């Protein structure tokens, strides 16, 4: 998975982002001001930088402007003004996240920027199950398993948001789209299929009143 630099001066938020990204399988380095970004870049090779705009010493915009290395950047801003966003994107940022943000938004944006940069994970392995994300195939003990397109989308969403509980509504949206009028029990049926075919009865946890979570040791 990706190696990500988190530049955010609010310690609580920095830790929060780190926890979230670690959960879904990334490794992180945290810095708390703009100057430290450049030090960290010299020591590590990062796949992505999450950059707060309002930071001590050197602000995020200046960091983007001065950065020479070709690393994808998502900037984080508390000010949601259009000018700020446009300014950041013009400077070469790949995406932006406005505070307050939720976990799924964060992981989705990180995932999409990584994919665009060609740095997204191509596959996933857990026990005797391997998933070829780009080839859209699932193997159990090396034997391909048959899944409907919706079921594969569910597996993909669970893997990308591993260790994060996804609500039934969210899963329904992901696999069937917003305009699907179906019942959330449809999700239960397909999750049951996936569990049975992959032997994931304990790997996909049912979260009380919420939905499902793919639990993977961090």
């Amino acid at each position, binding site marked *: 998975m990706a190696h990500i630099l988190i530049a955010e*001066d*609010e*310690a*609580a*938020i920095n*830790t*929060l982002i780190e*926890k*979230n990204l670690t*959960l879904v399988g990334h490794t992180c380095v945290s810095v*708390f*001001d703009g100057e430290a970004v450049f030090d960290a870049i010299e020591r590590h090779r990062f796949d992505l930088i999450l950059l707060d705009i*309002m930071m*001590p010493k050197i602000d995020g915009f200046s960091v983007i402007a001065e950065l020479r290395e070709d690393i994808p950047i998502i900037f984080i801003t*508390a*000010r949601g003004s259009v000018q700020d966003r446009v300014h950041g994107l013009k400077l070469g940022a790949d995406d932006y996240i406005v*505070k*307050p*943000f*939720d*976990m799924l938004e964060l992981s989705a944006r990180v995932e999409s920027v990584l994919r665009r940069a060609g740095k997204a994970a191509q596959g996933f392995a857990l026990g005797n199950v391997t998933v070829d994300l780009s080839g859209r195939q699932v193997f159990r003990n090396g034997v391909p398993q048959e899944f409907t397109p919706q079921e594969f989308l569910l597996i993909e969403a669970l893997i990308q948001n591993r*260790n*994060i*509980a996804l609500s039934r509504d969210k899963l329904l949206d992901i696999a069937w789209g917003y305009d699907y009028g179906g019942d959330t029990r449809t999700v239960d049926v397909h999750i049951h299929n996936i569990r049975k075919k992959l032997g994931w009865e304990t790997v996909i*946890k049912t*979260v009380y009143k*919420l939905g499902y*979570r793919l*639990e993977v040791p961090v």
Partner: protein
Amino acid sequence: MRLRTFLYTYLLFLAILFFSVSTVSAYMTNNQVHMLQEKSAREYQTIAASVARDVALLDSRGLDARNFSAALGELVNSYTLYYRRHNIELALVNTRLLGAAPPETADTPTLSFRNEDGIHVISISGPLPEPFQFYRLNYQLDISEEIANTEQIRRILLLSTVGFSILAAIALYFILRNVFRPLELVATASRNMADGQYQERIHLKGKHELANVASSFNQMADQVEGHIQLLEEEAERKQQFVDNFAHEIRTPLTSIYGYAEYLQKAPMKEEELIESTGHIMAEAAHMGIIANSLLDLATLRNYVPNIEEISIPALFDEIRQSLSVACREKGVQLHCAYSVDHLEGQTDLIKLLLLNLCKNALTACGPDQGEIWLDANQEGGQITLSVTDNGHGIPADRLSKVTEPFYRADKARSRAEGGVGLGLTLCKQIADVHGAELLIQSEIGRGTKVSTVFTAL
């Protein structure tokens, strides 16, 4: 306006000019005709006298009728030939031969002026002197040439008048442009001001009325610009406040929402539960402090303090007690000194002011060698309370902003100490309602001195 003035002035000018010119030329023509008539009359008299003399001479020779008329014809012929060279036609008519009755009345020469097909003629007809009154002498002077000359002069006069009129129009245009330029400057400046360019001024020299208008206009512009600037600054401050407030609220909100979501969605571990709820509670408490501080600020706006006598030694004691724990933890020494015992003000507010200033000083102080001086002095009837520290100081460019809401000279340190960025704003507000002034002096690495000078009370 300029065009109208130009038209009216020019029309008036043209009317006067053309009236004068036509009057003069009419007078000239009349005068010339008159002179020619007088000249003709004199000439006629001379010719008539001369003809009469010659006729008398002929008569005295005693010729018979035939010879007399032949001689007379010769005589008249020679006169005619002579005067024809002077454009004068003469004729002598014997009225008796024509059978006309001799004139009864006193027959005087009659003068007439005719104009036939462009040929102007003065004709005089009258009898010869006695005794030859039955002879009529007809005299005709052709004055076409003189009339034509006069016409020529009139034409030249008219042409030059038209030329002058055009020149006058051009001159008038430039004069009016000069005269109206100040007015146009005023008009342009007013228009620009109406469009929001409040820095517009009129530059006019001299002491005439328009210069006065310009100077009044400039004064008005100064006033308007000043007011607009104040309003803009006020609006900017408000906007800044709203922006800062939104930012201040978003940060704890992000933490609260984020950690709550984490608790809900991530696999639970005991230590993460404690850590996350700890963040949530701390941020909620932080928001509580912001809310209270904002409420204090709102209450203090236009607040009239309950003025009472404050004992400075007692006040300093209370502050020393409140801060004793914090001072001990940071290893900071607090020194109190006063040369005045009493101060007029609202006790709890003044205490809050000093506490806030001392907390800022504590934050600024480095560990273990920090010192804070709390002083009360009186100078020229003004009491000054000051809090001085030997901390890291505030950069000069941030000094003017430190009393703005949510502004933090050192964001990271302030947040770490639980500050919300409203302390100095509150202090300034407290100073304001007491009619006091908050003065901040600072030097990087040397320390900061915040003085509250009580001027009005």
